[in-house]
């Protein structure tokens, strides 16, 4: 049996877990591959026009996946940490797919991820629906998940040591693990924290490879996956209440962490047009950056593919940071 895992949304964060799990169960796993113009177009056509680009792209990947495999994996993300949730669009993801992609009927595998406190979503309970659908025994599912969990832990470890999500994924695919850590680039003269959800930052069609572009300009990058979640949450303590959304909390927490980090010269917030949680997160980050006196900018992206504005804005921001830093350095000298 072939199962396609859409190369979109939380794929970038959880792929090693799901990949290992399904392979252990004897599935043939198909990756729908990086977003292409074709996938983008298919998704934009099927989805509601006002919805955010990541969901449109996900829809495109599902359509692509349906062409490539028997089943498509569309998990319903409710929560992985009490009392937080995912964005409502994630919670209704299989419903959205059912409503917009007609041929998905009966070919979507959508376990409900509704865990009170299991960040790596490795509880076998979640996947028990596979037992009914395909006749696996509960023991088989448990064993497969245990293996997957180990792989996921190693994967997360790589990120905490300073590899960004996409590089850690490359290491996983190549089976290289720790050797890649040497490739972490640390020789740039300025450091920028690029904050945003993995599906915005690492989808080359959405973010137009903002990280690679920055690295080419000689900038060191820090992202939110490089911080253990406890540290991110520690920074949120002074808020009256946490945000509802798990990943928004981490982005915000990481932002607050990097504002205090003397190495970091500026912050770029990557966000998709019409992203609901980010309207709030962005406002909070902007406010806190003002207070901390660090430059902050927002890169808003959508399904359009003009690259010019992005390059101009990144370059301007980097130039500004450099000038600021050199001015400070020459003062000291």
């Amino acid at each position, binding site marked *: 049996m072939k199962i396609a895992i859409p190369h979109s949304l939380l794929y970038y964060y959880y792929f090693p877990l799901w990949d290992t799990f399904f392979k252990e169960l004897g599935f043939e796993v198909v990756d729908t591959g990086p977003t292409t113009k074709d996938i983008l177009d298919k998704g934009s056509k099927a*989805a509601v026009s006002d*919805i955010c680009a990541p969901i449109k792209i996900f829809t495109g990947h599902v359509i692509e996946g349906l062409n490539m495999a028997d089943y498509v994996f569309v998990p319903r993300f409710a929560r992985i940490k009490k009392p937080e949730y995912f964005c409502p669009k994630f*919670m*209704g993801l299989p419903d959205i797919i059912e409503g917009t992609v007609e041929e998905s009927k009966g070919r979507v595998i959508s376990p409900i991820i509704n865990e009170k406190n299991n960040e790596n979503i490795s509880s076998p309970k979640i996947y028990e629906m596979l037992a009914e659908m395909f006749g696996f025994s509960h023991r088989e599912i448990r064993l497969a998940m245990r293996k997957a969990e180990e792989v996921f832990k190693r994967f997360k470890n790589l990120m905490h040591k300073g590899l960004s999500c996409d590089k850690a994924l490359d290491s996983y695919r190549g089976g290289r693990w720790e050797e890649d850590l040497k490739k972490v680039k640390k020789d740039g003269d300025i450091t920028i924290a690029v904050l945003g959800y993995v599906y915005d930052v690492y989808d080359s069609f959405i973010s137009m490879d903002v990280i690679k572009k920055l690295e080419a300009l000689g900038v060191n990058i820090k992202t939110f996956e490089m911080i253990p979640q406890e540290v991110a949450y520690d920074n949120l303590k002074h808020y009256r*209440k946490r945000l*509802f959304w798990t990943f928004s909390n981490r982005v915000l927490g990481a932002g607050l962490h990097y504002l205090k980090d003397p190495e970091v010269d500026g912050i770029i917030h990557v966000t998709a047009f019409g*992203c609901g949680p980010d309207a*709030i997160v962005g406002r909070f980050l902007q406010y806190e950056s003002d207070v901390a006196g660090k430059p902050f900018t927002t890169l808003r992206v959508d399904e359009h593919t003009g690259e010019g504005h992005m390059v101009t804005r990144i370059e301007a921001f980097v130039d500004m940071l450099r000038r600021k830093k050199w001015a400070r350095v020459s003062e000291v000298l």
Partner: protein
Amino acid sequence: MKVSFPYMGSAIVYKKLFEFLEHEVIMPPKPTQRTMDLGVKYSPEFACIPLKMVMGTYLEAIEKGAKVLVTSGGHGPCRAGFYGDTHRNILKSLGYDDVELIIFDAPQDNWKAFFRNVQKIRNGVPWHKVINRMYTLYRFVQKLDELEKMVQKIRPYEVNKGQTTQVWNQIQEKFDKIKTRKELYRVYEECKQMLLSIPTRKVEEKDIIRVGIVGEIYVVMESSINFGIEEILGNLGVEVERSLYLFEWINDNLVPWILRPKRFKEIIKKGQRYIKILIGGHAVETVGHIIDFKERGFDGIVHLMPFACLPELVTQSLIPKISKEVDIPILSLPIDEQTGKANMLTRIEAFVDLLKNRKKGETKEVFIDNIQEHVQEERVVMV
């Protein structure tokens, strides 16, 4: 305390609440273009329209002298839960340090904070009086909603255009002056008579068009932001019912679980046919109400949502499918600060035409009828 609050729907209810608690109430002005402009100017660009409108309302209320703003938080993954914090943040950066914002979150999230807020709001009024007055307010809302439902049933058939709306405004003024429960029942009967004495034309059951309005609470309840859609539809000869009335919202959300009416649970169950779990906001209710309206024999649905509203986007994705499977026309209208009234009017009129033709069954004949009517009208003009 000089208290104010966001404007939504029948704002006199909130005014009454704070009057009963012996506060000095600063009545926020009904939202206008200026409110919107103020709100849009100071809010995050991609926040939804309710957040911006409420922001504008706060600024206008502060201009009028409000020192305390009271609002509800919310729980679950919709953004509304952070309106309060975002507003506080913006007010602070605008330099209003002396304005206090009291946010009521769902009590089960944080009992302590909830009771601290209650104590602040209670204003030293003895508990037995509070309970008595809250019961009066509960009935107040109920009676006002009953009258509004009557208005929606009478407006399409009024003989003198605009009379019902006029009477409705008078009713609200009368309700504004009510102090006791006894008075409430008396005024209610009086108002009911006022409504019943409006001359109407008789319409046969087969010609009645009923439209249900569903969607996110703020845009459904607040007429200044939805272009007074109920009035527009009423004037086009359509009976209207909303999915949300304040009284029902109170019953569904504030009354203890055991005492809640069964209806709410049934609506949720119907909604879960399409959205399997509760995803925050009013998405599941919206779907539930669409199905419920269909089952009650309504002819069409207008779905209102703020642009980029998180939960309602899920609903919107499902609308073509629901519309087809349940067999009911649905018009989905996203609302933001840029929507023009003419565009909205055209779409609503076209939708009502569609419903009327559908009701008559034979589109072709209707078309010919209309042409003949047109021809006759033209002749009259020529003469």
